[in-house]
């Protein structure tokens, strides 16, 4: 490995999980720094110039969401949240506070690595697909400069809002966006409580872009949290 290793801070109070993450991540070529408390984690993230933070939401000393906010105060480094199941509200709060993605415990290594790669790709600036002003995944192609959308060779006509919605998802492709985040970007800050607008437009988009809207391939729902565009 000639390239510099990515440095990951693991903020987690449970030693077995820390041990597992260190072993797994180091085997896959990452450098791992462990922190057992939120406070220590924030300091480590700062002085070690980390590339990514893996953050457990249930910390003994401070709320995970506060850690996200503390890091976001000075850095845009990707933050990956670890949380227990059925804690959607916590996840949404963390995501709204600026976390990039989350994983529900228990999780497998494959899942974790995939999320880390997506997050690092986002952090490295624009993803390859959007560099030329054209995003494409599977049959879906979005020309961001000319505002045109294609499914295969067929051009799809979208209403302005439908397009704006798609554009926001494309911009953050691969990343989970909470309802609030999408609503704010598409409809503006006044509409962030009207989640059903979003769901109806999402449904319309799926009907236009997906082969089977009931089994979507691109426009995926993160249950109780938000949506994301599969890359």
């Amino acid at each position, binding site marked *: 490995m000639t390239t510099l290793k990515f440095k990951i801070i693991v903020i987690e109070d449970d030693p077995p999980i820390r041990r597992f993450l260190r072993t797994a991540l180091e085997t896959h070529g990452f450098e791992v720094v462990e922190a057992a408390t939120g406070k220590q984690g924030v300091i480590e993230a700062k002085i070690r110039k980390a590339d990514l933070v893996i953050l457990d939401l249930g910390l003994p000393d401070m709320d995970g969401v506060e850690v996200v906010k503390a890091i976001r105060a000075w850095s845009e480094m990707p933050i990956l949240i670890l949380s227990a199941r*059925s804690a959607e509200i916590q996840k949404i709060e963390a995501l709204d506070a600026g976390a990039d993605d989350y994983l529900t415990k228990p999780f497998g290594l494959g899942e974790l690595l995939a999320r880390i790669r997506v997050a690092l790709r986002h952090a490295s600036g624009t993803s390859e697909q959007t560099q030329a002003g054209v995003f494409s995944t599977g049959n879906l192609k979005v020309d961001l400069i000319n505002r045109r959308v294609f499914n295969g060779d067929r051009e799809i006509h979208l209403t302005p809002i439908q397009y704006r919605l798609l554009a926001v998802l494309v911009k953050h492709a691969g990343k989970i966006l909470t309802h609030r985040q999408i609503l704010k970007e598409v409809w503006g800050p006044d509409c962030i409580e009207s989640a*059903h607008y979003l769901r109806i437009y999402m449904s319309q988009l799926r009907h236009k872009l997906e082969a089977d809207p*009931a089994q979507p391939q691109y426009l995926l729902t993160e249950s109780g949290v938000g949506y994301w565009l599969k890359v």
Partner: protein
Amino acid sequence: MAANERPNPDALLARVARKQAKARRGRLKIFFGAAAGVGKTYAMLLAARERRAENLDVIVGLVETHERAETKALLEGLEVLPPRQIEYRGTVLREFDLDAALKRRPSIILVDELAHTNAPGSRHPKRWQDIEELLDAGIDVYTALNVQHLESLNDDIGQIAGIRIWETVPDTVFEAADEVELVDLPPDELLLRLKEGKVYLPQQAQEAIRNFFRKGNLIALRELALRQTAHRVDAQMLDYREDNAIREVWQVSERILVCIGPYALAERLVRAGKRFAVSLRADWIVVYVETPELQRLPAEKRDAVLKVLRIAEQLGAETVTLSSPAMSEAILKLASERNVTKIMMGKPSRRGWRRFALGSVVDTLIAEAHNINIYLLGSPHKPEEAEDELRLAERRRDVLPGLLQRSKARKQGYYLGYLWAAGATLISAVLAKLMHGRFEQSNLAMVFLLGVALVASRFGRGPSVFASVLGVLVFDFFFVTPYHSFAVSDTQYLITLGAMLAVAMLISNLTANVRSQAKVAAHRERRASMLYAMSKDLAAAASEGEIVRTAVRHIYVEFGSQNLILFPDAHGRIVYPQEESIPESLRQADLSVAQWVFDHNELAGQGTTTLPGTKAVYFPIDDGSTVLGVLALNPVNLRRVFLPEQQKLLATFLRLIAQALTRLRFADQAKKVALQAEAEGLRNSLLSSISHDLRTPLATIVGSASTLAEDDGSLKPEDRKELSRAIYDEARRMSNLVSNILDMARLDAGMIRLHREWYPVEEIIGTVLTRFGKQTAGREVKVALPPGIPLIYCDAVMIEQVLANLLENALRYTPAGSPLEIAAETSADSVEISLADRGPGIPEGLENRLFEKFYRVREETAQSGVGLGLPICRAIVAVHGGSIRAHNRADGGAVFAFVLPLDQPPPDVLQDEGAAS
């Protein structure tokens, strides 16, 4: 025989119970004297100072120093409870403050003058009742008492001293005292003290000496006091011997039956019976047999009997009222039932030839009661005087003020009878006139006899005697020679007259007896049917409210009084009922009185000895051991409540109510127990389920992991991979299981808060299908969504879980590769989402059991899952107000469908700016 020498176990038990009851109660010490001024208060204060010196918490509740200097000096240094000031008719009375004493809770309290009568408006009319309450509260009491205030000596002292004492203390209080200290002073010394002014203030002294403190009186009183104390010592001796099981004491216990009637002697009989019972240490029963004749007595006399019965109760007797036409028979029956050994009664009222001809109760008893000794008590006065005395006593003793009311209606009926008697005689006369000359004269007499018989059968003795006398006069005047004159020439008509009178008396007596028996029978029947109706209604009552309503209505009907049943709250405080009142309900009740009744399990209120100033009467409702509630009754007429038969009826009512309440409480308890057992069963099945389902994957994990951990390099790479995969899979399975258990627990505990929002059904189905991704590979999953399905208002995460659980079951229990169909349908007010499969279907009859917790079609199979998936579905759908069901398809396979209601107005319709596209 040896068995005879052993103490009777019942007696031993009674003694232990007595000792235990005493241990809880405070101890009562009475300083007992022959008269005022012998130094009781002084002795009491001395004793108190000694206790104080022993560092006991002694306070003075109330002490009458009568301004005597020596006594006042002793009060120094003792804590004195401030008296309660009561204003009564313009003067301020100082009374003992019972509540303050109970609140202060000293270990010993001094309360002077046991026989004192409290000011009106106090909780109890008498001070000894205050002291009883102190003792009940576990406080030791020192008090003082003069011999003339003892209830059973009341009569004797009245005779000795020539005055009657109205402030009396029941003998039971004196007998129950733990200690009696006799304070004795020879009469000469007492008189000297009086002269010196040490007893009363000087100006009062002379008057007092003249009235009461005569030397003769004092000697007699002193003798009584000494004798009373000696009695106690005797009793203590007996107790001691009992305690030490000295054999001679174990004799057959005596039981005395005192028979009273509506005469003045009754009260004396009761008092004598009391003394007799005490001297024999025997139980005693006071009985009143009400014959039909006695039922016809005026109300005042019947009330007087009632009062004597109450006095007997106060003296510690058991009282019984019997209703029977034959007095001696009733007495004998009771005597044999209760193993009576001695009967006490008044001397026979019939004397001379009447006694010989008509017999007397006493004679019958003597003839028939073979094993019973009979004691007769003579009357010291002539009967008339005795009557007067009784009436006087009635006026002075206001124990039952409401009882002395006379009935007017009865009087009117009375006069009507005489009118009819005159009428009947007139008609007879007219008939006889018509017959005159055609029939023999003796037949004319028959006509009059017929009239007399008719009157006798209809109107009773008075009118029939009147009719017979009138008839004889008319007969004599008009139809016997010489006509138009009362002179009787022929003596044979005297026989006619005598026969007519005799027939009149005989028939009127007979019919009166028959009628009163019929009345009694009708009364009994009515009562029986009332009790039957009430018990039937109570048995049918399914709730406490219903029981209360039923009871209140029945009591109102029988006693004509508005009433109310009160229950305690969780803290034992009596509270007003929550239920709405019915017309028969009493609107106002004194909760503090009710509370007292509830705490003490004794009745209180009007007509009783506790808080008689209260308007209503309060009865405890108890099931024999605990008080369940309190009946407050506002009597229109005390007689209707306190007559013995009415009291018995009310007691029966209360018992019925208590039984109904107890039954209901037991039923509630049984229901709770059943629920608990069900929960217990559930917990057991949970435990067995969990232990199986958690242990199975754990076994794999532990086994595989230990193999990997102890690997010395001999494992092939593919084996290592295999083991790791097994650990991973099993851990996943366990994770699902634990989530399910936690979800179920949270749903059960009602801890789930729904985050309901508007969702398209399509998105929910889509999310679930995406999540299952690979697992559905190889199967055809058809989604049939008709256009125009409205948004549903739900917690999407939870509804997705419902669908996910159904899908998981379908994948698990149907053959691989078989198709699945997800469909949604709308009706006017609901959306139904269903999942259909082509699997083996649901076994017949199990469609509903599937949704029960921990239910699996096949127990303990290798297929994983705790049997919580479907119960979780049902719980989630239920919190959304919907329902879930399962059924088999006609052409094979099963359908699981849940319905969600569309009960919320849909959200604003969007203005789609790009609708044109």
